[in-house]
């Protein structure tokens, strides 16, 4: 029965197996959620999707800050007459059962009047009566059923801004106008010489004009703005010929209908804008629930517990923490400011900041840095610096975090657009000059016709559709890119730099090696017994691997926090702990995390903890090494240099003991001669990720933290990275092929234009045809090469 799957969450039940109501549960948490659901008539949860639940975390005192009215006021969206509405982000939302149960929260508490889930964003908007339930109670309720909301400083600072829906509006306007104009221009396509049709021509034409005005002025506005910006910074981007095309189409058509020269090109105009916007819309695939802009704010708590003069606990907003304040840091809490330890056993995990996975122990009086996570017990500290002045937060003052990577990158479309604009203008001028000498009345007609037909609609569509579709394909394989621009930058990469801890290694499993004199059976038994009494994580993992079943009763046990433990049975003693504690001088060799053992005061040896490398890391290096230079930057000590060097090529650059700034500066130096890809995971890589040409954050769980980056890659798909890079390169080839294809259409169109025979109906057929065929071509090709990933 031990291997039964939990009825609530689907995990293996294992050793804490609980049986309740004829069902198996992996832990008491899951059982409790089941009880809550069934006793409130929410058992349908299990019918919609089986084993869809999430194990609730132990909800600690960490939400005490929600008692602070000021903080609550900032978090809620609506607050009036005893009603509050709050929009909470819940990373564990993952299936339709989640939607169902969260939208029926009212069953669990009568104070909750409404709740609505936004699945793509993983948020739930809850309305509740403040008389019956407070925000804190609501959060605790959600936590108790396994949907703990994620409330960070980021949410606190976020302006309750409006959603930008302008692109949908523009698309709507253009599509609306396009449809109507097509309908109105239909009679003229056939040029039926009928008296009554002739009579109403002006009405139809001016109606088309009326429909086109909002398209040019509103829907197409971005193209004019972008072209203007490009010209001002002396850049001929692709929007210049587009804007020129739209403007020419509009002016020429207007003059045509004023002087009754023809029906104008309003149908092509509206169609062009509509297709262009459609491309933009397609490209705009964002992963709403992922944040690519995170900084320390999303890691930090909103509030901390301050001890006031009377020694009472008080929850205060984090920005109000002042130098000299005394604050409490609880177990598993992040230290928000640089401070001095006053009381408590500090065991700080600085892996967010340095990447070093080994926790450090601090004595009262020592300085603690912001960003560390307390692992055992409560600390009392004195604040030395305010939040924005702290060591970690200062990193974000670096200018790389405000730099816009996409803005400084010239895309393939833009670089082709430049040449294209130049060529079109040349042809237009030559053709005009030619006609000026032969038949001056045709000159203006030809000039405008060239600009109209050469409007690079198809070229402008090739990149959005190819890259947009690629983005989706990558997304299906758990590689989430921030935007399409990132794919283009990825294709240009010729150097890859990896972080070690958390990126190449996994935090999920460790390998433990023993070095030293062999332990006798009795010693092993004593060691295991001693370890059993300790709660330290290292003791726990050591305990699990030791093969001894002879558990004895300890006569004496002592735990020296930050140093080690000591156990005694009869006249034998066993010391486990740091090198200094067991009486061994710390070897000068830099090494991994190690636990030393001494039996009866004789140092026996040590257990070395090594992070296990992810599977296939060597294959990644091998595949990438063929295409580019590969290097490793690690915040850890160089205990694993040999092992890494074996996996990498001999001349590969491997650097250890790198602080966050060092990483950033190293990338900067490499960028002088390379396009650098940085693959990292923690806050300590944030600077390097921001500085690199493409920064990829590897994450075990994409819903949890990842620093600001261009892409988030699920750790299980790391081995696909070389393929992703290859595909990004292939995508660029597809775009180039599409350009070639659209050029063919342009040549045909230009023939009509230059010879002065461009009729509105030809333009109306040619332009949508070229656009659609490019779209089809790009989509089919990307789907085809996307199959490589399977």
């Amino acid at each position, binding site marked *: 029965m031990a291997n039964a799957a939990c009825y609530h969450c689907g995990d293996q039940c294992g050793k804490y197996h609980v049986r309740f109501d004829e069902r198996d549960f992996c832990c008491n948490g899951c059982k409790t959620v089941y009880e809550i659901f069934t006793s409130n008539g929410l058992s349908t949860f299990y019918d919609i999707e089986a084993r869809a639940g999430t194990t609730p975390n132990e909800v600690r005192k960490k939400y005490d800050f929600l008692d602070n009215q000021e903080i609550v006021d900032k978090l809620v969206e609506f607050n009036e007459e005893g009603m509050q509405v709050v929009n909470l982000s819940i990373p564990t939302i993952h299936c339709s059962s989640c939607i*169902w149960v969260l939208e029926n929260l009212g069953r669990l508490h009568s104070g909750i009047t409404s709740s609505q889930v936004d699945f793509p964003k993983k948020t739930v908007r809850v309305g509740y009566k403040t008389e019956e339930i407070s925000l804190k109670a609501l959060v605790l309720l959600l936590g108790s059923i396994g949907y703990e909301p994620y409330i960070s400083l980021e949410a606190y600072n976020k302006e309750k801004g409006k*959603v930008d*829906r302008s692109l*949908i509006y523009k698309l709507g306007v253009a599509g*609306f106008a396009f449809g109507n104009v097509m309908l109105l221009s239909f009679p003229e396509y056939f040029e039926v010489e009928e008296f009554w049709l002739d009579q109403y021509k002006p009405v139809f034409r001016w109606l088309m004009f009326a429909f086109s005005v909002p398209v040019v002025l509103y829907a197409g506005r971005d193209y004019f703005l972008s072209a203007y910006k490009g010209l001002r910074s002396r850049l001929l981007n692709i929007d210049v010929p587009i804007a020129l095309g739209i403007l020419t189409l509009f002016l020429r058509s207007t003059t045509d209908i004023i002087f009754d020269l023809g029906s104008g090109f309003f149908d092509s105009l509206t169609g062009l804008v509509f297709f262009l916007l459609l491309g933009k819309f397609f490209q705009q695939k964002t992963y709403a629930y992922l944040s690519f802009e995170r900084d320390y704010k999303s890691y930090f708590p909103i509030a901390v517990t301050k001890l006031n003069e009377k020694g009472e606990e008080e929850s205060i907003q984090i920005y109000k923490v002042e130098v000299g304040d005394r604050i409490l840091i609880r177990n598993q809490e992040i230290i928000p400011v640089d401070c001095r330890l006053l009381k408590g056993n500090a065991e700080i995990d600085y892996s967010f900041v340095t990447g070093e996975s080994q926790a450090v122990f601090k004595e009262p009086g020592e300085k603690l840095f912001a960003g560390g996570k307390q692992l055992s017990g409560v600390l009392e500290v004195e604040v030395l610096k305010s939040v924005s002045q702290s060591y970690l937060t200062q990193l974000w003052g670096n200018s790389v975090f405000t730099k816009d990577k996409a803005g400084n990158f010239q895309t393939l479309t833009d670089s082709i657009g430049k040449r294209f604009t130049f060529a079109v203008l040349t042809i237009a001028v030559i053709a005009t000059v030619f006609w000026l000498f032969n038949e001056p009345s045709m000159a203006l007609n030809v000039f405008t016709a060239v600009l109209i037909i050469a409007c690079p609609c198809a070229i402008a569509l090739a990149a959005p559709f190819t890259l947009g579709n690629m983005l989706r394909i990558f997304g299906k394989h758990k590689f989430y890119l921030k935007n399409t621009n990132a794919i283009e930058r990825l294709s240009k990469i010729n150097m890859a730099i990896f972080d070690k801890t958390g990126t190449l290694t996994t935090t999920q499993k460790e390998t433990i090696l023993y070095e030293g004199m062999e332990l006798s059976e009795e010693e092993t038994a004593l060691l295991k017994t001693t370890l059993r009494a300790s709660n330290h994580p290292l003791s726990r993992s050591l305990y699990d691997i030791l093969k001894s079943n002879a558990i004895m009763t300890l006569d004496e046990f002592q735990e020296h926090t930050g140093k080690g433990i000591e156990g005694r049975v009869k006249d034998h003693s066993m010391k486990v702990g740091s090198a200094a504690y067991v009486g061994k001088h710390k070897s000068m060799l830099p090494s991994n995390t190690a636990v030393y053992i001494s039996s009866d005061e004789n140092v026996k040896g040590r257990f070395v903890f090594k992070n296990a490398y992810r599977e296939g890391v060597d294959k990644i290096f091998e595949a990438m090494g063929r295409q580019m230079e590969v290097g490793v930057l690690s915040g850890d000590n160089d205990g694993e240099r040999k092992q890494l060097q074996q996996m990498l090529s001999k001349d590969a650059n491997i650097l250890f003991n790198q602080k966050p700034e060092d990483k950033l500066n190293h990338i900067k130096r490499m960028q002088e001669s390379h396009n650098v890809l940085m693959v990292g995971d923690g806050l300590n890589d944030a600077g390097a990720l921001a500085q690199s040409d493409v920064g990829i954050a590897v994450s075990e769980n994409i819903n949890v933290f990842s620093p600001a980056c261009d892409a988030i890659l699920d750790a299980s798909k790391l081995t696909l990275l070389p393929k992703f890079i290859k595909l990004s390169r292939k995508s660029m080839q597809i775009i180039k092929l599409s350009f070639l294809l659209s050029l063919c259409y342009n040549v045909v169109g230009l023939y009509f234009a230059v010879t002065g025979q461009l009729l509105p109906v030809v333009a109306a057929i040619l332009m949508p045809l070229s656009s659609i065929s490019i779209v089809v071509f790009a989509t089919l090709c990307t789907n085809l090469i996307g199959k490589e990933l399977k």
Partner: protein
Amino acid sequence: MSVIYVLLAISISVALAFFAAFLFSVKSGQYDDTYTPSVRMLFEDEVVNDQKPKNKKSKHNQTKSTNQ
């Protein structure tokens, strides 16, 4: 006046009405989340008649346990 003006006026006003409906739907946020409603509409009103199936279930469980 020809009937064509009337027809044009009707067709355009119908089109405008739909356009206004579109604008309204965007404005009210219907395009913000295009996934959840598709799931939501498939839920039955389980909550309303939950009392009966719940009883049934517990009875079912009881009989099961007595059998064992």
